[in-house]
């Protein structure tokens, strides 16, 4: 397995279980990502990315599910800006570590096949936005402002 393309780390003042929930709850994912992530959260299960108007823009599999510590998913985008597009499968591992009063969330994204530079740049800039929104949501409880566009739909 190749090394990750990038790794992002954020510290969130919320319990590990809440961070897990932010990653796996459909409604919370809608607030964070701009689309719902719908699926069963167990190893081998399938999930879909669904927009507000019901379009399935991506899908994937749960490779590893160990709540609330570790979640590994693999996905492929089906639709970007209304156009059919098959991108390489990317996998991401989210590691959730409780550290006293805070929880450390580490997200690493890996691509098995070489990826287009533009896609990679977009992907790399998305994660800090998402994990920062997660931190704001979990630490303040306030509803988030909408993203200007759903993440990765550029």
């Amino acid at each position, binding site marked *: 397995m190749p090394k990750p393309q990038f790794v992002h780390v*954020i510290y969130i003042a919320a319990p590990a279980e809440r961070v897990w929930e932010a990653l796996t709850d459909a409604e919370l994912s809608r607030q964070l990502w701009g689309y719902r992530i719908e699926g069963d959260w167990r190893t081998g299960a399938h999930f879909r990315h669904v927009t507000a108007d019901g379009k399935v823009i991506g899908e994937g599999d749960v490779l590893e599910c160990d709540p609330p510590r570790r979640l590994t998913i693999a996905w492929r985008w089906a639709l970007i800006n209304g156009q059919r597009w098959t991108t390489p499968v990317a996998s991401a591992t989210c590691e959730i570590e409780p550290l006293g009063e805070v929880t450390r969330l580490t997200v690493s994204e890996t691509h098995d096949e070489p990826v287009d530079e533009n896609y990679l740049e977009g992907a790399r800039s998305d994660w*800090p936005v998402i994990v920062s929104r997660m931190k704001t949501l979990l630490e303040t409880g306030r509803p988030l402002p909408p993203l200007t566009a759903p993440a990765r739909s550029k």
Partner: protein
Amino acid sequence: MVSDPDAVFQALADPTRRQLLDRLNDDDGQTLTELCEGMEMTRQAVTKHLALLEAANLVVTYWHGREKLHYLNAVPIHDISRRWIGGLRRRSLAALTALKRHLEEEAVCPSRSSST
């Protein structure tokens, strides 16, 4: 090791540390040995700089098999840019950056980017 703005700015204040971040930005996920190559200082000195960057959460380490890899963590930088650059500013900044890039390309290669 929680994100501390002072630690971030202090870490960024040194040219060697910025060079290390540049190198990771170009080629992420490097071992200590790889990072030491081409740096004109001892392995110990590089280790010290990396420790400061890690304490600021600007660099994170990740075990890949038996290798300890260093990655540039964009999260603290994103927080800083987001702090003073909100919605409208970001859009006008993006437009300015695009204009700058266009003008710089035109200066280097006028015929290619000419619209006539």
